[in-house]
């Protein structure tokens, strides 16, 4: 079974295990105000129990073949996550998602982790299209989409509920022929 994948000398992608709950709790709670604005599950009072539930949810989705999320491990510490949210076999498409603790920002971590995931989607899965949805106010996230070569397709109005408020999401995509 896949446990850890080395992206480069600093970054590893690791399969979420229940024993990571304490570390996940710490990193999410330590970046609460930042994450809470954009990540639906990153509640303000993120507890050890929440961390465990989240890991179990990711494991469950993986087993059902509906989601595939891994932790981003930077210099030996969990600092974020990257994942695929939907496997659309008929249309050879999937959705890319990511989150990063505020303290780890500015090191190109998400871009590097996403590149590895994109490579997996186009090369190993042989898919044709990767979708990325992000809030247009989330400038850091928009920058990642741009850096990875995604194209903005439009704005999906009130497409997501975060903290009981409907938010618009910008829709981006990357096609296999655009990736090398």
């Amino acid at each position: 079974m896949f446990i850890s994948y080395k992206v480069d000398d600093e970054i590893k992608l690791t399969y979420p295990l229940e024993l990571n709950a304490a570390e996940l709790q710490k990193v999410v709670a330590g970046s609460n105000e930042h994450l809470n604005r954009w990540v639906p599950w990153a509640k303000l009072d993120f507890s050890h129990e929440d961390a465990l539930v989240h890991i179990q949810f990711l494991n469950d989705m993986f087993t059902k073949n509906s989601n595939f999320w891994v932790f981003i491990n930077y210099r030996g510490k969990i600092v974020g996550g990257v994942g695929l949210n939907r496997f659309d076999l008929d249309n050879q498409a999937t959705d890319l998602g990511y989150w990063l603790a505020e303290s780890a920002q500015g090191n190109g971590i998400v871009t590097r982790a996403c590149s590895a995931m994109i490579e997996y989607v186009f090369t190993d899965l042989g898919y044709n299209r990767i979708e990325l949805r992000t809030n247009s106010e989330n400038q850091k996230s928009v920058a990642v989409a741009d850096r990875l070569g995604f194209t903005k397709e439009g704005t999906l109005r009130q497409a997501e509920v975060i903290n009981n408020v409907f938010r618009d999401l910008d829709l981006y995509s990357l096609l296999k022929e655009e990736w090398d």
Partner: protein
Amino acid sequence: MSRTSSALIEGMRKLVVEENLELRELKPEDSVEIAAVVENCFDHLTTWLPWVNSTYTAKDTKVFIKRARILSEQGRGLQMAVVQNGRIVGGIGFNNIDTVNRVAEIGYWLSESATGKGLMTKCCKALVDHGFRELGLNRIVIRCATENTKSQAIPLRLGFTFEGISREAEKLHNKYVDLKVYSLLSSDKKPFDQRA
């Protein structure tokens, strides 16, 4: 325009669109009638429907309906037959009802002989109404292939907003097509509500 009348019959949803036109939830037995419709106007339907292909049989529809029934029971989908004068002339439904974000997407198809009379627009309006009023949806999406202007006319007539083009978002018989994305929000002004 009056509200669509909605009823649950033995756990199956039925919406009366107008006299002699109703939407009722699909049941496995419908697969035979639908396969006959597909056979009748195969060339018309295969142009834009991935599931109407050279290997299509009634069994495909039966499998689809069984799966749709499970999703319906979980509140995650609703697939209905378009029934005119007691005969199935098409299909319409909510795919992927997202109860967390209160979003769902509508898909539809119509037999060749039933087109050109505004039938699908009426059916779509009834389903939109049901989605906002009964299912508590906030956002309803319709996606149409960029070249399928007939299909695009429906969201445009119902006051949907064009949001963008999803590139190569659908695989249609071994080639990818771009999809125009339209949406209607529960708070949007609806052209059909002004007459209410």
